[in-house]
């Protein structure tokens, strides 16, 4: 009991001494906003978060406050507020031993004595399917570690909901040549020379790259790499790599790792410096609104959709217009209004 008294005292002390976290730089704030928390969080959201957070903390007993905030994608201010609130919750008579045992001590979150909420909530069916989908996709990844261990984990999950783990949920990841070579090059920090077909210019060119990340998106594998030609980070579609050899040079991981933003979910597809075009698409060209990252989409009463997207080159837009045919039209900028027709005319001339 004496120990509890100490704990409670510690809580009270902490509450007085906890400093408001320093104002975050703009980039960090943007990440916090990315956690879908805009405006004040509802009571229900805060409770839901705590019912996941508290058992997680009690399992670990002591974790750095900054690590917890990062793990749960929360600002430190929100986290401190939630923990302070939890620390005064429990059951009557609200004596120290009847409260949730969590406090902050010199930058550490401490939850050593499991009083309340020490066991996590059950998985919802959506969470169960999500984890099954993750495991099934992970098992298909080249070089995926621990396939058999993952299978054992799924067997254990099946005890919770046999129907969910048996779910007819299939993941079809694209095949791509060179994927394994890219993976081992990334692993070995080996610089590569590739022959790459660039659809934005319709040409094959040689590039020297240093692999930073390999990822799939919308049915294609991409390699994010440092590109010697442009001096910038570029995403190359793996199936457009026509050949690949190691140059023999080995680079330092720090050279590339420092340039990756791990919270960057859009893989740096399109920068703001790329040209913005607005297209009107309808009927069998409606796929354009779904196939590419768009800046905005507006549905019109006549069934058409106005789509704004950034383009990498005039050639790329010309190709899109040709494929969309008469059901896509450029609204802005003016200079591209006749681009589809001009491209069709040029391609048509090959048939003469």
């Amino acid at each position, binding site marked *: 009991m004496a120990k509890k008294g100490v704990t409670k005292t510690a809580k009270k002390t902490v509450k007085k001494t906890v400093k408001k976290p320093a104002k975050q730089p703009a980039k960090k704030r943007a990440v916090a906003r990315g956690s879908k928390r805009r405006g004040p969080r509802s*009571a*229900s959201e*805060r*409770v839901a978060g*705590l019912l996941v957070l508290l*058992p*997680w903390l009690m399992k670990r007993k002591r974790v750095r406050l900054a690590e917890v905030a990062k793990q*749960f994608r929360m600002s430190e201010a929100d986290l401190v507020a939630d923990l302070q609130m939890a620390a005064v*919750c*429990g*059951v*009557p*008579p*609200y004596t120290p031993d009847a409260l949730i045992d969590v406090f902050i001590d010199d930058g550490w979150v401490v939850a050593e004595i499991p009083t309340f909420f020490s*066991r*996590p*909530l*059950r998985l*919802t069916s*959506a*969470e169960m*399917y*999500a*984890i099954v989908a*993750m495991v099934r*996709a*992970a098992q*298909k*990844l*080249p*070089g*995926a570690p*621990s396939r058999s261990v*993952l299978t054992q*984990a799924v067997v254990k999950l099946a005890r919770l909901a046999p*129907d969910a783990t048996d*779910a*007819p949920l*299939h993941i*079809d990841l*694209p095949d791509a040549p060179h994927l394994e070579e890219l*993976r081992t090059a990334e692993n070995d920090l080996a610089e590569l020379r590739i022959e790459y*077909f660039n659809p934005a210019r319709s040409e094959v060119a040689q590039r020297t790259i240093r692999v930073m990340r390999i*990822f*799939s*998106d*919308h*049915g294609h*594998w991409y390699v994010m790499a440092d590109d010697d030609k442009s001096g910038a980070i570029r995403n190359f579609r793996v199936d457009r790599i026509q050949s690949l050899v190691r140059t023999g040079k080995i680079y330092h*991981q720090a050279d590339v*790792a420092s340039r990756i933003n791990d919270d960057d*979910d859009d893989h740096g597809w399109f920068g703001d410096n790329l040209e913005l075009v607005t297209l009107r698409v309808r009927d*069998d060209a409606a796929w354009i609104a779904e196939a590419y990252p768009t800046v905005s989409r507006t549905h019109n009463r006549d069934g058409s959709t106005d789509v704004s997207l950034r383009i990498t080159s005039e050639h790329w837009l*010309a190709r899109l217009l*040709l*494929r969309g045919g*008469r059901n896509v039209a450029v609204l802005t900028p003016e200079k591209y209004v006749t681009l589809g027709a001009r491209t*069709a005319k040029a*391609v*048509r001339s090959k048939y003469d």
Partner: protein
Amino acid sequence: MGSPVVKKTEKINAAERMLNLLALLSARSQPITLKQIRAELLNQYSEDNEAARAQFERDKSDLRKLGIPIDMLTLGGAQAGETAYRVNRNNYELTDMGFTDEELRALQVAAATVRLGAQEGEQALWKLGAERVNPKLGPRASIGFSDPHLGTILDAISKRAAVNFIYKGETRSVDAYGMLARKGFWYLVGFDHLRKAQRVFRVDRIESGVTVGKAKSYTMPKNLDIVKAVPTDRQMMAAGDYEHPTAQVRIDASLVHIVTSDFGAGAIVRSEPDGAAIFEIPCSNGYAFRLWLFAMVDKAEVVAPDDVRELAMRWLDELAAGV
């Protein structure tokens, strides 16, 4: 036990009250009434009976939405007719899964290498006691799991309950057999009662909410391969009623590599001295063929048969007429 800590009398925040309510209902072995709850959670609910009832109903509803079942019992005896409430921890807490550290690490790596674009994956991971990690190496896949229909349909499949929704302006009732994630989209394969045949639906094109029918209303077909049931782009090009099943297309040298990896070396009819090649390409589905052909802009030209060549020229003429 030391002296009770005096609870503050000012208005308590709703999150704190909800946590206290859950702790109280979980800790009591016997069901308790709202009157008893208010007495225990002193000053946490409004003094006004109606307002307190509204607050309590809101808390109860929010807790249920979090997956916490609150049992309601109608009392007899001296409290006849009063409702009492109880929460059985065993009904909402996760039992110990017995994961080894190695299994948890494997799940963490799986979660880090597969991006779902939805919070459910991370939530599941935390509940299982694992954490978000960030492996620096290795391929990562993105399969997208944010469509709210996914959970509903998958649940329905596991219960063998038909799903109902509007698709292409028509109400469909579908015995759902399975789902496939491919190229950034989710597909549902099932028996469509409207068409009286097996059909494939793209989930993001469902135009309404999805309602679920009675459980155990159908049986799964045997030996159904969900992956094969959803046609690939290449198969789509061959799935149509155009009179010519294939066309010969001249592909520029710069693209021969890519077209060969898509259609196989067997599709090459002949190679030309400049590195270009003539491919035999399915074109039964004119729309899909056109999308494929024009993706190569001026690097692909239909050479035979004449009908398909003329069709390609007509497409281009129609578009060029806008100049």
